[in-house]
């Protein structure tokens, strides 16, 4: 996948017009993350229902197209999953964006996998991997209700 394709396939759509870019009303989990190097910052909100299932997920913040697209896709597909499932998906995503050729999680539908795989091109741009992963790390913090901000490092 070349750069043009990476940007065009889906990033542009999600990156320029990200979904869930808002603050979930009545959220009960949230966390902030930032990337001191480039100034990206994000605030992830989760609303879990009584069965600990993610009823709604959203985010606020600013960043490059890659980080916005990644947050957009993430907040979309995490809805309806519980914490355990969500964290497994995070692991799977992080593995894919760094080295694995494909996604393996049984909690992801084929359609969801296809959506996520359009971020796979980021692999070739190591400096941008943290743009793609910032929202994911931040979501984990929200689940863990860590009080500190997440900072991405390599």
């Amino acid at each position, binding site marked *: 996948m*070349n*750069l*043009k394709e990476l*940007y*065009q396939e889906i990033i*542009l759509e999600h990156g*320029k017009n990200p979904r869930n870019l808002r603050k979930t009303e009545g959220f009960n989990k949230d966390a902030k993350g930032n990337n001191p*190097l*480039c*100034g*990206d*910052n994000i605030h992830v909100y989760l609303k879990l229902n009584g069965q600990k299932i993610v009823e709604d997920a959203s985010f606020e913040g*600013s*960043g*490059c*197209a*890659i980080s916005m697209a990644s947050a957009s896709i993430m907040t979309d597909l995490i809805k309806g999953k519980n914490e355990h499932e969500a964290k497994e998906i995070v692991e799977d995503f992080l593995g894919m964006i760094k080295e694995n050729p494909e996604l393996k999680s049984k909690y992801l539908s084929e359609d969801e996998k296809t959506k996520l795989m359009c971020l796979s091109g980021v692999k070739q*741009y190591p*400096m*941008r991997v943290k*743009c793609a992963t910032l929202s994911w790390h931040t979501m984990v913090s929200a689940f863990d209700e860590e009080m500190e901000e997440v900072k991405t490092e390599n």
Partner: protein
Amino acid sequence: MNIDQIKKEFPIFDEKIQNNDLVYLDSANSSQKPKIVVDRINEFYTKQFSNVGRSVHYLAVAATNLYENTRTSVQKYINAKHKNEIVFTKGATEALNLVANTLGQSYLQEGDEVLITELEHHSNYVPWHFLRKSKNIKINFAEINEEGEITLEEIEKKITPKTKLISITHLSNVTGAILPVKEITQLAHSKGIIVVVDGCQGAPHLKLDMQELDCDFYAISCHKMYGPTGLGVLYGKKKWLEELPPYQGGGGMINEVKKDRISYGELPNKYEAGTMATAQVIAFDKSIKFLESIGIENVMKHEADLVEYGQELLQKNNSVKLIGNPKNKGGVLSFIIEGVHPHDIATILDEDGVAIRAGHHCCQILHDKLNIPASARASVGIYNTKEDLDQLNESINNCKKIFDL
């Protein structure tokens, strides 16, 4: 002056970067290195290596002389009065920390005010912030005007009876504004205020004359000045360096060491604790020779031409918005493109071999002021050509295409 010829002195431009010619527009970050500098390092390590100042054998004596030669070259290049006013550090950041720390130990008092500007690099803010924490000094910020400049008037306005020190950049690494350092120093001195200059961007691109500027301290980053990494220079007026306490302690900076007391050595040893960056210092002599061989007036002329050309190009490019428009401007072109994040710009330009920087360039205060999280920055060096700026513009157009602008 033949830029093609000069460019040939930089071996990296013979390389293909991902199948592209390298269009290096990141010199404000760090400059490329001419062959003579790299060769000097090589020669020193393979034929002449020894530690400096500590042994009396042949190699040690020769290395010590070479090391001290560079000090003399720097002294002459920046027109310092005394050789001992030149202190080698690991970088400009260390030089600024040295100044802030030692002034904090013995000169600045609780309640004193330090005046810096909104243009300052973190390296010229965080060291003062340390003193804000430890000594309760206050930091004031001179504000930029519409053009991204700091004027003498603004400095004057921000001076209070408690202002003890002004620390300013010579040339902004974001807006390119060249500050009126000489005038600011005159004003400051007339009020008994010390002036520290962050010369990181000044040193590689402007004429340096410490007698004319008359500032009390001037910090230089050698790796931005066609020199090796891991080396900086602190110029400080003799009276200050003599009066202030040492910064780091260790071998080489002492006079007498007893179990109950220690006395420190004379300048410049007092500020050069431990084994120094010997090879880098020795090679830096060649960076100065390189700049001298071109002539700083020629460097300045060439870079002014480039920046004027680049500014015109980018101004004509709609959707590109330049940051700052100072009258007196060095070779830095920072910009944003509405709807495209600077990191995306940098990544897309990189595909064409165009190396620029994206981010806040260690100037978060300035970006906050401009209300942008980040910007893209193209910066030039002596090896750049108008064709490089044409390529920059063309790649920006590619980028706009990808983003449907």
